[in-house]
Structures are given as C-alpha cells and as structure tokens.
C-alpha cells in the first residue's frame, strides 16, 4: 500500500531483449482481462500491474473489463468480453468455482483462459493457472510463529488470528494452513476474528480481539492492508507484548518490518505481481511460445507461487515487490 497509485517498476517486468526470443515482438495478441472491483490495495494492485505489464509489450492489445460486486456481474462482463473474441482471457474470478463454467465456455469457444489466483476445479476450464498459495501462506505464518515461540521458550502461547473476509474460500484455506501447522506443533489458535480486508474493519476486529485476549504472544493478520488498522488498534490499546505476522506483503508492511519499531515482525507473501506474470504468460500462449528457461515448448498448465516469509533480515530484497 502506498499513497501513489502507480505500480513500482519491480512488479512488472519488461522482458529483456537479450534474454531470448520471447522479447522480440511477435504476432499480435488480444488479451482480455477481468478482475473483481477493487476495494482494497491488493486487488487494486492486481489490475494496475496487469495493465502496466501489458503496456510493456508492443504486440499486446489489452482489453479490460472491470466487473462489479459479485460473480454474476463478472460473468456478464466476461460474456461481453468473450463476444469480442480476444485471443486470451486473463481473469481473476470472484470465486473459481462460481466462474468455472465460464472458463469452460470460453475454452470451448476457442479462447485460451489464464486463471489468476482462484483455481477452477475443472481442468478443462483453463489453459494455465497462476495461483498464489493460500494454504502455504497459513503454513508459512504458522512456521514463523512456531519458530519464534520456540526461540522465546513459550510453551503454551496465546495465538490470535485476524482473518480476511470470512465468506471467501481463500480465507478458509489460509486459516486451515495456519491451524493445521500450529496443531502439528502442539499449538492452537486462541481466538480468531474475521475482518473484511479493509483498514477500519481490521482496526475494529483487532480491538475486540485484544479485549478477548488480555495477553497475546503471537498474532497473524491475513492481509497487510487491513493490517494498518490492526496495528492502529494495537497502538491505541497500548499492546506491544506480542509478535505479529502479516500477509500479502505490502510496501507499508515491509517498511515497518525493516524499521522494527512495531509488533509486526514478519509478513508472508501473496504478491499481486502474479498479475504481471499472468499477462506475460498469456502473451506467450497467444503466440504459441514456451517459457525461455524451460525445456518445454509451451507454457505449463499451472504455476503456483510460493509464499515467502519476509523478516527484518530479507526485507530489503522484497521492498521493491511491495504494493
């Protein structure tokens, strides 16, 4: 999160002409793009990244439809997009399962689909999926917490969790990764509140969580954007006793980790740079090319980005990825 809207250069990647054949302008590719209406930083970054990445290619025509509040609205927007017959459609669905049928419809109509972030259950519904690792995020956050608790010698830590929008399946997956890993280490989540990925909901839920748990050893917050509110709540309640782990990897969060003056000690990534990658892959798919470093002639079916843990030690490396 930052006050300036432009994506940092690092989140897009102009393909280096020297790196191989893929950089050279090829056949013209029309890429349609759709993501849900952004009401918070991460989603906003997805759209801006995709746009910016497309702009780096002279052979890509980029058509974006933004679409409203729910899956039905997105489906309607996508069908107008499909009717314009692009070569590839890159979409971040509201919900992978809900838009699975659209993927099938598009693939049947001969339009290649690149799914971003929220998996389609049906393998015929997409050409390629670029996914973040929600479960892995929970695992990474839990691992960091376990490591820290062990290091501090806390045997039965009080662990809190501020989740994102609870009705989204991805939130459930993240929480499951977190609690599975904690359980394996003999720990449990003492209290969990679900916020709505917004700063004010983060503040509100965190302030209530703090009431419920008079002492906390570790706190995982799913989303760095709502984390601004969580940190504000900690600050307002004057509670600094715990370590806090964030999620997604916003610039703001990485800077805070680097500064090391707040309970936020780490964040587990879920980078919106995946949108840029998806656009690059879509271009290659449209042109029938493969990934330069891979032996295969075509782009692979699925790419799952790993969730990395940013701490004070490696924060400098990640700062440029912060959104």
């Amino acid at each position, binding site marked *: 999160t930052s006050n300036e809207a432009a994506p940092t250069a690092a989140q897009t990647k102009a393909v280096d002409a020297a790196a191989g054949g893929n950089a050279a302008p090829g056949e013209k590719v029309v890429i349609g793009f759709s993501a849900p209406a952004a009401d918070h930083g991460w989603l906003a970054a997805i759209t801006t990244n995709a746009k910016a990445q497309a702009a780096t290619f002279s052979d890509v025509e980029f058509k974006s439809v*933004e679409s409203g509040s729910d899956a*039905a609205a997105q*489906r*309607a927007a996508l069908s*107008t997009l499909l*009717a314009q017959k692009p070569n590839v459609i890159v979409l971040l669905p509201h919900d992978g399962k809900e838009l699975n*049928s659209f993927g099938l419809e598009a693939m049947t109509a001969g339009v290649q689909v690149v799914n971003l972030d929220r998996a389609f259950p049906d393998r015929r519904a997409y050409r390629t999926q670029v996914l973040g690792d929600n479960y892995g995020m929970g695992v990474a956050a839990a691992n960091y917490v376990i490591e820290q608790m062990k290091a501090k010698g806390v045997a039965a830590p009080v662990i809190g969790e501020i989740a994102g*929008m609870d*009705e989204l399946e991805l939130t459930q997956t993240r929480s499951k990764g977190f609690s599975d890993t904690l359980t394996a280490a003999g720990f449990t989540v003492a209290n969990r509140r679900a916020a709505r990925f917004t700063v004010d909901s983060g503040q509100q839920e965190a302030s209530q969580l703090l009431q419920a748990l008079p002492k906390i050893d570790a706190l995982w917050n799913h989303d760095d954007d709502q984390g601004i509110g969580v940190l504000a709540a900690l600050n307002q309640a004057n509670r600094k006793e715990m370590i806090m782990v964030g999620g997604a990897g916003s610039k703001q969060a990485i800077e805070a980790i680097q500064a090391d003056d707040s309970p936020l000690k780490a964040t587990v990534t879920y980078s919106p740079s995946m949108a840029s990658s998806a656009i690059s892959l879509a271009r290659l798919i449209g042109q029938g090319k493969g990934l330069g470093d891979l032996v295969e002639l075509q782009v692979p079916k699925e790419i799952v980005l790993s969730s990395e843990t940013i701490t004070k030690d490696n924060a400098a490396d990640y700062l440029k990825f912060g959104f």
Partner: protein
Amino acid sequence: MTATALETGRKRLWAGESGESVSRNLILAGVLVALLVIGAITQPQLYGDSAWVWSNVLSILQLASVVGVVTVGMTFVIIGGGIDLSVGAIVALAGVWSTTLATQSFGAGGMIFTAIVVGIAVGLVNGFLISYGKLVPFIATLAMLVAARGLAASISGKQTQISSSDLINGIASTKLLGIPILVYILAAVAVAGWVLLNRTTFGRRTVAVGGNPEAARLAGINVKRHTMLLYALSGLCCGIAAIMLTAQATSAQAAMANLYELDAIAAAIIGGTLLSGGRGTIVGSVLGVLIFATITNLFAINGLSTEAQNMVKGGIIVAAVLVQQFRFQSVTRLFNRKP
C-alpha cells in the same frame, strides 16, 4: 402558471390508475431504449454485428434474470406494505442448502425442491415475525438477513459447493429456440406475478393490505395471514432465484446474491412501486431490473473502470427517476385526453 409540488401531486392523482402506470412504464421503456442507443453510439463496431447485438441482448436478459425473479417477489411485499431485506440471504441459504452433498444425492428434483422449500420456510418465518410478532418488517428481515447468511455459512462450512447436477447447470447453459432457459424462467415468473397481482383475489388483497391495512381488515380480509403469505411468496421467488444462480455459477456459496436486496428494492421503486405500499406494477419492476442490467452491460462493453461506473450509475439512477417524474405529466395527458 407555476406548478407547485402539491399541484403536481394532485395531477397525478387525477390520472386514471391504469393510464398512469402504462405511461410510467412507457417512460421506463424509453429510458431502456436510450441506454441501448448510447451503447450503439459508443461502440458502433460492436453494434454493427447483428449476431453480437443479439447475443448482447441475451446476455443482458440473463444478467437480469435472477434479480428479476427476486424483484417480482419483492414487488408484492412492498405493494403489501412491507419490505424484505433478507432476499439475498434467502437466495444464499436456499442455494447452499440445495447443493450440500446430501441434497445433491437426491438429484436435480431434490435440489429444486429443497431450494423452494427453504425459500418458502424462511419467508414464512419472516411473515410470522412481522404479522404475529408485530416486528417492523425492516428489523425482522434485517435480522433474518444476518441469521440466514450465518446459517448458510455454517452449512457450507464457508466453502463454495459445486453443483454436479448437469440438469441444474444446464438451466444456465441450455438454450431453447436460441434463448437461454433462464430468460424463460424470468418471463414465466413475471407473467405469473402479473396475473397474480392483476387478475386474482390474492393480488387485490395485496393492494388493499398495503394501501390501507385498517380498511382491509374491516372489509373482512385477514391482514395477518395475507402478510405472512406475501413474505412466503417472496421466499418462493428467492428459492427459484437460488436455483437459477446456482445453475449460473455451477455452485453455491454463503456469500452469493450479495446485496440483492438493494438491487431488488431499487428496481421496484424505479419501476414505480410506492415504498409506502398500495401501489406498484410487475411490468415496471421488470423494466427497472432490465435498466440496471443494461447499465451494467453498457459499462462493461465500454470498459469503464469500476469507480467511473459507480459515479455514472448514481447519475443515471437519478436521471431516470427525474425524467420519469417530469416527463410524466405530459405523457399522462396523452393518455387521459378526453375525446
């Protein structure tokens, strides 16, 4: 002559009811056409392709279909003097309930049955709380909104539940004579709603109960029972919508049909339904839904950003109602001209 507010109001009163609603709906149809024309002007290359135009019209109709069905039920509730904030939540609960593994094991019939029974049952609870518990409809259905979404989340374990019934999913993907089944369902519900409102004793009671409940009661109408039935009817529509939405998404989820209550209420009001009850038309409500769907479509084909969309959308809503309001008089005159 300066026309004061009162005078305008009076004028409206003097217009024969049927003439009034017909002219009101004509204006709405005009707005709809204007929106399509704007589409054609801004995207001439797309509108040049007649196959595309046809598919675009179908896509608007499909987009409108689910909210349309919900709005028909909502229109009855509002005409009857109530409001139902829980429609979106009922759709979600019915959708989730009908896509549990257990329900799906009974096949498409079982799923449809479940959705409809759940819809009606929740509607009856709303109606009971309002009629016999004497709760304000706003509060009763707001509470139901919260509770039903909670129940839907707990049934689904907050997972998206995939519908594996080809029959159900086919509702969204199959076409009959080139027109998707979803559109037929909307048409059927709208026609049934129209007949029910205009041609049956149930419809007459609805207008009476919403227009003057005390008068209705003293004329021997069982106002409480009728109110219950209205919410059950809205629930039934939500059950049908749940199946349609599940078919479209080939899945159901506790967060589905989010804020449909606002869409449905707004469409009904734009369509000329009085929020205070006693007056409204099905045709108007359906036109209201179509207008909203067309606006969404217009934005999509022009690739407007969501924030620009929202700003313009607010403006269009206001403009649509204003046009309706100020053009009203002159059109009304046409219809009430004495021979």
